[in-house]
């Protein structure tokens, strides 16, 4: 059937299984939006307040569902506004297809109105990108984009389509939904070598990353851990894969990791890293990380092996398959002394407890959320102290429940991501934990959440400062609080009302439970302004570049 490029695009998205797209119209995508209008019964379009919000929404949708997130933006500023969202998805391996319009082919290269070289700009932050110059190639490119976004290590793909290509016609043939490329089976020799090293381990440790969540390998990971009696630690990307109360779970690793995780890492003799990349927030000091261990690195991306930490052994492959193969090849082990000593230390050296002084503390709020929602809630965060406290204290029991920009650390991510997560999971409670700094960046997306009537609970940890930067200024810059005491006059309750949402305020601990209950009964988004202490800090913290010995446990620097 002869169709316009715009019609081919929309029909191809439908063919690829896309039910919802996040975007913002504009001149160069007029044809695309016209084609969307025709198909509005088959594909839902959510118009955000800003293209950045659309990219984050596509990302939050993808992380929470495992499906591909799709964002659409117009040329020029529309396209550049997507960039932070695409980079966020790239750093955390999120499958996304971003579609941008561009000016007509004969206007390209002339600095035309709203023209930008978006494929050039996004080259380092996409797995691949395209500029479609011939409408006859469009259908194939769209399918290929979904294949690339979802094959091996997932990531974003951008398709830039000049306006005249969306208007010109080509033959459309009904296409099958994409199938990701098959991941090569792990090499038998690599598996054998890993099995041998694990067999000889006396003090094994498993370090789980986001790859475990992506590969849907949480139960396989637990099976291996239980079989070989190896404790588990996780990066922020991996925490939702391990139930918080699992008897072998030590908590998060790294800069803000639990003392026991970092101790285990320093003392283990075999470290089994699964779908993790030893970032500088995990291996704060690359040269000293797991210094006594044989490192076995399991990853689907061959370029991750020995990128940051030299892996003594490696298995390249899908985490789920590799873990199954290891579990089949291994026999039960007992490392009672090792595990008991760590669990004793875990019980002794806990994360700091919130003071029982009646003031509002995020740690108490997280506990209340958990009690109220059990394992159902999806916790979305922005970036900063509130994010790390959520990672440290929230008791996760279900993968894909922690939606957070861990690699790029994008302040302003949360509001869009929460919209995406709620759209993809209408039956699960979605709670955005944000800070007053992060929320101010992209709170315009409240308008979108209200329009879509999405019951998202937004908890603003309002300490009136840029808490994490301020914490670093306190610890590493002699309390010279340069430009972090923002002290905005924003009234978040009135703000909620101005957007057409509901606002609450929590000023003392005893208001938490009641306010959460009220918020849960609101049919639509609500903001809860949580007034917290500006001097609260995230502890422990290993200073950048430091080792476990340098850990700081409190504001006094010790």
């Amino acid at each position: 059937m002869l169709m316009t490029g715009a019609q081919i695009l929309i029909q191809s998205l439908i063919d690829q299984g896309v039910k919802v797209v996040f975007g913002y119209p504009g001149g160069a995508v007029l044809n695309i939006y016209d084609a969307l209008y025709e198909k509005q019964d088959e594909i839902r379009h959510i118009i955000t307040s800003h293209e950045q919000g659309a990219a984050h929404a596509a990302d939050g949708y993808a992380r929470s569902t495992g499906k591909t997130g799709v964002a659409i933006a117009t040329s020029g500023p529309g396209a550049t506004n997507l960039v932070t969202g695409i980079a966020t998805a790239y750093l955390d391996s999120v499958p996304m297809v971003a579609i941008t319009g561009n000016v007509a082919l004969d206007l390209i290269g002339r600095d035309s109105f709203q023209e930008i070289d978006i494929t050039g700009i996004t080259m380092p932050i996409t797995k691949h990108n395209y500029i479609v110059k011939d409408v006859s190639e469009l259908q194939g490119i769209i399918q290929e984009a979904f294949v690339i976004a979802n094959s091996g290590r997932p990531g974003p793909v951008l398709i830039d389509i000049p306006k005249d290509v969306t208007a010109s016609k080509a033959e459309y043939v009904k296409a099958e939904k994409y199938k990701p490329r098959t991941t090569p089976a792990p090499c038998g020799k690599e598996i054998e070598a890993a099995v041998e090293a694990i067999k000889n381990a006396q003090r094994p440790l498993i370090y789980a990353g986001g790859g475990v969540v992506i590969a849907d390998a949480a139960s396989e990971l637990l099976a291996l851990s239980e079989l070989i009696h190896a404790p588990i630690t996780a990066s922020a990307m991996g925490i939702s894969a391990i139930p918080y109360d699992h008897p072998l779970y030590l908590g998060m690793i790294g800069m803000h990791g639990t003392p026991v995780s970092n101790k285990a890492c320093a003392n283990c003799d075999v470290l089994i890293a699964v779908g993790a990349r030893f970032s500088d927030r995990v291996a704060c000091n690359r040269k000293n990380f797991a210094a006594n261990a044989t490192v076995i690195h399991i990853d689907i991306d061959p370029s991750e092996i020995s990128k940051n930490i030299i892996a003594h052994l490696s298995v390249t492959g899908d985490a789920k398959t590799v873990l199954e193969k290891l579990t089949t090849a291994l026999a039960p082990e007992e490392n009672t002394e090792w595990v008991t000593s760590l669990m004793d230390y875990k019980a002794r050296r806990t994360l700091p407890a919130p003071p029982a002084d009646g003031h509002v503390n995020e740690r108490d709020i997280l506990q209340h959320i958990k009690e109220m929602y059990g394992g159902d809630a999806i916790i979305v965060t922005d970036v900063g102290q509130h994010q790390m406290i959520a990672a440290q204290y929230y008791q996760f029991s279900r993968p894909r429940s922690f939606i957070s920009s861990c690699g790029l650390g994008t302040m302003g991510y949360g509001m869009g991501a929460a919209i995406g997560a709620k759209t993809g999971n209408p039956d699960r409670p979605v709670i955005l934990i944000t800070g007053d700094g992060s929320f101010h960046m992209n709170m315009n997306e409240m308008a979108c959440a209200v329009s879509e009537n999405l019951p998202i609970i937004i908890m603003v940890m309002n300490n009136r400062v840029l808490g994490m930067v301020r914490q670093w200024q306190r610890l590493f810059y002699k309390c010279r609080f340069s430009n972090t005491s923002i002290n905005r006059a924003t009234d978040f309750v009135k703000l909620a009302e101005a957007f057409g949402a509901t606002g609450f305020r929590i000023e003392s601990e005893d208001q938490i439970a009641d306010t959460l209950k009220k918020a849960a009964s609101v049919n639509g988004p609500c903001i809860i302004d949580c007034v917290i202490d500006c001097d609260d800090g995230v502890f422990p913290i290993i200073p950048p570049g430091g080792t476990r010995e340098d850990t700081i446990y409190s504001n006094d620097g010790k």
Partner: protein
Amino acid sequence: MMKEEVLSVLVSNHFGVLTRVTNLFGRRGFNIKALSVGETENPAFSRITIITEGDEQTLNQIQKQLSKLEDVKKAVIIPDDLLISRELLLIKVSADAENRPQLDALISEYSAKIASQQSDCLTLELTAAPEVLNLFIEKMRSYGIMEMCRTGSAALALGTQTVYHDAK
């Protein structure tokens, strides 16, 4: 330990691919000492030959990161013992009646060719392994190099195995 290697990269033959490859080197801080690119016998592919330098871990990363690019069909480091590498040099030197006999002797020694000659300058052409070009250039310095241009290496591996082996 730093080591110089020759990377042979088989890529899709369409616009923007060279940018993707050089962009990767730039953003990850990898070194390009020389680069040449041209079509292959198959119009669907081009071949980029890159001389790079790094320690073992870096060279390994370069090869793996390149292999991840969608348009890269194969990226291999050609081992030293299998390497056939040739480069073209054009070099313009001052020449007069006095130094001409010495220049002619060098031209003959290196099997260089005279691409063009004027009364006061010679443009020489030499195809050889890059290290031979280095020696030749050194010899030319004393005669006054006016300008020169090197193409970067073209390289293949000895034997029947080709870059197409295991290409995606």
